[in-house]
């Protein structure tokens, strides 16, 4: 039986932490994304050909949104669980009547909520610079929620694994950002010559960027079914790893 009050207490506490640092949490990703839109959308985009009938400025919107979602979901959730480990406040969580369900719904739910707020703000910002439409808004919402949740889960795992602040940054900086850049954020992988096109298909982020792009423009390099399935598989793996962490107490209980 899930302890809803505890879940809500964790969720609320995490969101309050977010509100306390709202400037850093919201303003800096929005500013970064705006810079991308100014440079690649407005400045360079005007001289670029449309990709698959979509104006270049609009073409990069889903990819940039994905870039922000991945890195922010991961780092928010990893900080959320790493900080109490670092300060020692984790004792309270461990001694409380909460299990894996409450902890996940609380921490990961809050991190995913932040990501959704961020997504809304970024989409609104994008509208200032480029003209875009969302062909399948419900699919887009579903996809954004799934991605936010699964990468918040990944962040949670990182936050439990990390033994220092630098390790927290490792995965977002060294894996997620490069893979997103190479994953078709700024181009269609169909533009790539073989064998690079096939190599690109091994990059899981390609499926995320293209999944989101399909919900926007009804067309992408890979089918939405594959994208959704892969995201769900990733989600299930995350949950399995976290269930294992709680069962064994790895890095949490001595």
């Amino acid at each position, binding site marked *: 039986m899930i302890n809803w009050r505890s879940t809500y207490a964790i969720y609320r506490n995490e969101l309050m932490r977010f509100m306390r640092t709202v400037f850093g949490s919201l303003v800096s990703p929005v500013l970064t994304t705006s810079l991308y839109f100014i440079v690649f959308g407005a400045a360079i985009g005007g001289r670029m050909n449309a990709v698959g009938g979509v104006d270049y400025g609009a073409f990069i919107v889903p990819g940039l949104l994905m870039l922000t979602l991945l890195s922010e979901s991961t780092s928010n959730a990893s900080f959320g669980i790493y*900080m109490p480990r670092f300060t*020692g406040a984790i004792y*309270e969580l*461990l001694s409380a*009547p909460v299990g894996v369900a409450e902890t996940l719904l609380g921490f990961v739910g809050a991190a995913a909520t932040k990501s959704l707020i961020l997504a809304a703000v970024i989409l609104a910002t994008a509208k200032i610079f480029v003209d875009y439409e969302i062909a399948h808004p419900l699919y887009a919402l579903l996809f954004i929620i799934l991605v936010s949740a699964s990468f918040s889960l990944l962040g949670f795992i990182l936050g439990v694994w990390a033994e220092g602040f630098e390790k927290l940054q490792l995965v977002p900086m060294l894996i997620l950002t490069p893979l997103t850049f190479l994953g078709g954020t700024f181009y269609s992988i169909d533009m790539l010559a073989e064998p690079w096109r096939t190599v690109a298909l091994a990059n899981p982020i390609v499926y995320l960027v293209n999944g989101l792009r399909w919900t926007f423009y009804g067309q992408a390099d890979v089918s939405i079914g594959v994208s959704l399935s892969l995201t769900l598989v990733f989600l299930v793996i995350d949950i399995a790893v976290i269930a294992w962490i709680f069962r064994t107490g790895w890095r949490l*209980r001595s």
Partner: protein
Amino acid sequence: METILDIAGLTKVYPGGLKALDGVDLQIRRGEIFALLGPNGAGKTTLIGAVCGLVRVTGGTITAFGQDLAHNWRDARRRIGLVPQELGFDMFETVERGVRYSRGLFGLPPDAARIEVVLRSLSLWDKRHEQIRALSGGMKRRVLIAKALAHEPELLFLDEPTAGVDVELRRDMWRQIDRLRDQGVTVILTTHYIEEAQEMADRVGVIDKGRLLLVDEKDALMAKLGRTEARFRLAQPLAAVPDSLCAFPLHLEDDGLTLAYRGGDGAGKGKAEIAAIAQALPHQGIAYTALDQKESSLEDIFVDLVEREEAAA
């Protein structure tokens, strides 16, 4: 009396082989104040951690409120509070929010009145809107206690509650524990200040190297192991303890200038014997110029116990 916590054969071996708990058996009665005494690294914090869910035990069982903790941990933890030794919280949180969060985390609905009572009882009410990082060390420790009391636990663990706090705060803590006793809260506290156990506890357990050396009523412990010491400073040195006083546990120190007594039972026998010696000495023509007398404290008992244990090992 009802047993609120029953620990049986509890063992904890850390990876790397350190045996922090070695077959600990301990029953805690509802409503008592139990002091767990032991040197640093004795296993006190591990024992608390095992009950509170911070430590995964290697062997043994813990029964809390009549239910096996391994299976009914949710229900049990709701009724247990923990004040850890180390200060650990979100330093940017305000006092009131932090305490409210703790209450929610333990599954209780918000109750502003209850939180006010807790904050007032710890003299934190005036500081409720301050960030925890702005508080003094003593105040931070009070916040830890407030957080542990926010969900109205029936069983409260205090891990070294007065380590590194000033005398005034220590007295405050003791008063707070007294109030908890009046409310019927069962308190288990660890300390290496014997004075604290002597002042507060109903029962005392002594732990060293992961083994519980003894558990007894504090008064019984004092009576059983308590000793009276006396030192007669003599006007003239003696070569040997006079034959007529051989029945008493006496020996000479300081090249025969001090006649030292160590004995009794913590229940008055020692004092009576010292009075008898004091009367006997002038009859023997032995003059003394000073007399010191003291009852051994829990501290002496504790040191004795640990030393005896180490000698036996």
